[in-house]
Structure formats: structure tokens, C-alpha cells
């Protein structure tokens, strides 16, 4: 099954979900992206992106029980699917292929 194409924000969100593990929900993803990219995406933009990833089958989600701290709303937690893991691997391969031959512009690997 071919891996669906993903945009840069989608890839960043997918990686954040992997990094965050059991703590991968909207706000945490947003903070993780802000910390790494310096961009403060709106909560709506983050959820739209996560929804797209879920539509593509790259992540799955489950809702918690209603929480008082969220005004009685549940919290949606995300987890990377097998297809999502493949998409990350493919994106890494594509990136490596694209960077091939222009190694001078890359930072040297730490010893």
C-alpha cells in the first residue's frame, strides 16, 4: 500500500506525536512544535493537521473521560499507526536522498 503524501507541518506533527508518546494530545503537540520550530501554531491549526493525519491513517486517536481541567471535556490522545511509522521512514529516506551531494551544507555529525 503506497504511503500517502504528507506536508511539512503534517510531518512535524507526526514526529511530535512519536516523541510525546502517551502525552501526545493537541496542546502538547503545539508546545513541542513551538519549542523546536519557534512557530506558535493556533490550536485549531494543530487539530486540523492531526485530523488530516488521522484521515490518512497515519495516526489514531482515543478520547479520555471528561476532565474538570478541560471544562468537562475529554482529551484526545494520539498514537502513530504502522502506516505513520512507514511514512516517517519514507520521509527520512526522501530527505536523505534530496540532501545527497550537498553534504557541505549539512552540519557535521557529533563525534
Amino acid at each position, binding site marked *: 500500500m503506497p504511503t500517502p503524501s504528507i506536508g511539512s507541518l503534517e510531518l512535524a506533527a507526526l514526529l511530535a506525536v512519536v516523541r510525546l508518546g502517551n502525552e501526545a*494530545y*493537541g*496542546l502538547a503537540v*503545539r508546545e513541542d512544535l513551538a519549542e523546536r520550530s519557534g512557530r506558535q501554531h*493556533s*490550536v*485549531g*491549526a494543530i*487539530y*486540523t493537521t492531526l*485530523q488530516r493525519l488521522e484521515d490518512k491513517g497515519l495516526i489514531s486517536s*482515543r*478520547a*479520555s*473521560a471528561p*476532565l*474538570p*481541567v*478541560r*471544562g*468537562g*471535556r*475529554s*482529551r*484526545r*490522545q494520539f498514537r502513530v499507526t504502522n502506516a505513520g511509522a512507514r511514512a516517517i521512514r519514507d520521509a527520512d529516506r526522501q530527505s536523505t536522498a534530496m540532501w545527497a551531494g550537498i553534504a557541505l551544507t549539512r552540519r557535521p555529525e557529533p563525534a
Partner: protein
Amino acid sequence: MSAPDTPRMSTSLRRYADDHRSASQTLLERTLRFIGADIAFADDVLGDLVQERARRAAVRGAWAADLWYVAEALRSIPHLAWHAVRHGGHRGRTHVAALLAMTALAVTMAVFALRTAEDVPVRLEVDGQRTTNTVDGIVVHTTHPVRLAMRALDAKGNPMKSSNVRYRWASGAPVGVAANGIVTCAHAGDAILRASLGALAANVRVHCLPVKEVRAEMWLHLVAGGPPQELAFVALDPDGLPVNRLAGEVRVKDSTIVTLHKGVIRPIAPGHTNVSMRFGDGEASTQISVYEPIHSFEDLHRGQRFVVAPLRVARGDTLRWPLPLGLFFLTYQRAADSEPIPSFSAEGPIMCLPEFGPTVEFVSCLARGPGASLRIVHPRGSTSVISGSLSLERRPSP
């Protein structure tokens, strides 16, 4: 479904979150429902906003947290609306279109209301930038037709871009005034004119004070850092009588040399400048030279262009002052008008015009070679000590 998450927030934070399901949230939720947004999706977004607001309220205060909440909610609305368009079906799309149309209509009406509000004049006043006005009216010094400059202000005090102010004579001296504000002051006198713009009206006092001529001192010699001096001039009406109430323009050409404040000139640095005066149809200017004080011309060095030295000649005295090369002006200034002038003569390779004489106080000289000097002798027939000052202004080399 997994087991419920264990909230890591404190009890007080949870209470804050519960208490702050505010009207704005409800309105936001109602709006989202109206546009057909997926409620589960909207709950995810709103839940995050509420949770983060509670955290921020504990760290930065309720005000900052509410501000953040409103900003983030506004930023998220386009995404929620887009989500509703994509997932809300025909009904959702219709509601989004209706909401957008209502928003556009509200913005248009607000802009229109603002523009209309700006166009309502509430006050008429004299335009100070285009008219020589005083506290109690407008002064007109010319006999030529001039346009009165009134401007309309809106409620905020901003001048309106265009106003069609109309004028008419109301009382006082017979001043000619056209409806468009062209005023002709043929004679001296005060008149009241009525300016109106729609229902708005204001009286304007016009002082007709024709000035035909301005007379001022032609030259003024001052010492840098010395005492200030009042600018002397007089404005005359067509009958030759002085006009005491003046509103016009007095301007210093180079304020690094002298400054002018409330009619007083203060010499700042050596050099030459002028002060121009303009009142109605009359104008004049005063040339001002400011000199650097030195003890005598013996002390003169190359960089000094404007210098003045005190001169004191007793009976029987003969002085010789060296003169520089090139072209320069010499001016003698008496300490008192009643004092005689010393006898001057130039010696050496120098030519001066006019030639020195018993009444000549200003000469222009050209020294063609070194060794030129000025011979100063106590005049015959005088017994007293003569005192004054001799100033020298070097012209720049061609």
C-alpha cells in the same frame, strides 16, 4: 477507550476551569454549532484552550490568560469553519456562508458608520497655518484680496479634508467679503464676519491693518557671546503712521549665527546672516555681522574671518595695526555718536575704497602683498581720548 487520564492540575486550577465556562465560551460553542462544526473536533480545540487558559491564569494571572484565550480562539475559528465546510455537509456550508455574509455586512456597516461620523463637522476654527491670526481674530496687513482660511473639525478634533465654508459680513468696518472668503481690506478697521457650514456657524473678527512699508536697520554689528540686542524696525500704514499691532513673518536666515526670540537678537557665533521681516505688502531685512572679540589685529590668525578689536587713541597717539592679505572690510564703530572718528590711512601694498576720510567708517580693502598696515592717528582739533572698536571681515579667497 482507555482509563480516564489523571489530571495533573491542582484543585484550584480545576475550579478555575470550571468557573470559567464563560459567556464567551458559550457564544463560541454556539457559533460553532451554528456553522455545523464537528462537535467532537470543536471539543478537542476548546478543551485545549480551556486547559491552557487555566494553566496560564495560575502562572500569569487571569487577565493575561483571558487575553490569550480570546486571541487563540480567534486564530482557531478559521480552522474550525473550514472543518465545518469540509465535514458539515450542505447545512454546514450554508451556515458558514450566512455567517460570513453577516460578518461582512457588520464590518461594512461599521466602516460606513465611522466614515459618516468623520464627515460631521462640529466646530469651525481659523486655520493657523494659513492665516496670520491672533488670539481674538485674523489680522490682515495687505490691501490686496486675501482668502480667509477657516477649517471644520470633526468630533475628535481632526480637520476635515474638504469643507465648503461660506462667509458674509456681519458688523463693524465696511470690509469687502465674498461668500468664498475672499476679503479686501481697503482701509484700517475691525469687522465681524460670519462663517457658516451647514447648521454650524462661527463669528470671526478681522483686523484690517494695512502695512505699506517696513523700515529696519540696514546693518547690525554684534560681538559673539555679547549682549543681546532688540531688533529695531517699524511698519508704516499707507498714511505713514506706525502700525503697532503686527502679525507677520520675521525670520533669521542662519540661526547658528544669531537667534531671534520675542524680537531680541542673540549673537551666537562669528559670521554673517540676515533677518527678514514681512508684514502684508511691506518687507525689509537687516544684515547682521557677528564678530569674534580679539585684543588687537596683532593677534589675528588665518582661520579668523570676523574679528573685532577695541580701539583707544589718546591725543598725540599714532598706532599701526597690521592688516591681512587679500580682500576684507574694515568698519569703525564709535563708542558714542558724539565722539569724533580717528584719522585712518592704509600703508603698504594695499588699496582701499572709499579712501579714508574724516567721516568714513566703512571701507573695503585689498592687500596685494605682506606688510600692509593701518595707521591710526588722533584727529586734530580733538582733545579727548577717543574710544571705539574696529571690526574686520575677511572675504573668502576667490
